[in-house]
């Protein structure tokens, strides 16, 4: 009699698109809400453009408490900058400097998004244009968010406003 072998459950990540939008012109924030059923999330902001120079940041679950920490490598436009960035207990994940309009590509991965505890994140990006002030582009970042609940909302906030350009997307790996 043959033995039926049950193959092990796959542990590889099958990323699926959850939602994708072009920002509404004039909006200050773009939020994905009612997220559930995903153990990992990937946030992408590609070729979005601000209406006037400003910065953007990322928050989870509308949480602006001092719960975000990271280290990042900064790029001054030519070489990796000697002035890198490290934050402990920030109120958001800062994604760019204050002198940009074209945001290039920003891609962030968040782990364990269906769990209650601390979430790690890692990201990379390239801001397409440079403002008068050198430095402040974050090509590589990793850190964590002192969460106490699963991720249900991801918000991209600008200090100015978005134009109707580019794409903001959320991908996930189902539980």
């Amino acid at each position: 009699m043959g033995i039926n072998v049950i193959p092990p459950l796959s542990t590889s990540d099958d990323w699926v698109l959850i939602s994708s939008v072009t920002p509404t012109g004039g909006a200050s924030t773009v939020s994905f809400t009612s997220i559930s059923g995903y153990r990992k999330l990937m946030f992408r902001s590609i070729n979005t453009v601000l209406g006037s120079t400003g910065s953007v940041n990322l928050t989870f679950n509308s949480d602006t408490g001092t719960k975000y920490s990271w280290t990042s490598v900064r790029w001054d436009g030519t070489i990796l900058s000697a002035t890198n960035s490290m934050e402990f207990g920030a109120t958001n994940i800062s994604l760019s400097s204050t002198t940009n309009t074209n945001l290039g590509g920003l891609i962030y991965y968040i782990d364990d998004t269906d769990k209650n505890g601390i979430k790690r994140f890692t990201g990379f990006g390239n801001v397409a244009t440079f403002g008068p002030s050198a430095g402040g582009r974050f090509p590589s970042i990793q850190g964590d968010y002192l969460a106490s609940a699963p991720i249900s909302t991801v918000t991209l906030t600008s200090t100015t406003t978005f134009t109707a350009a580019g794409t903001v997307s959320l991908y996930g790996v189902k539980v």
Partner: protein
Amino acid sequence: MKKVTKRFGMEINVETGEVTRLELPEIEIEEVEILEADSV
């Protein structure tokens, strides 16, 4: 010079696909002059 700015957000419910406009609190922003940085 300070300027009061009305803001709104874009909210996408990923479950229903509904996109709504969210009124955000007004903020006061300081208009600053961006100066050229000294060479590094």
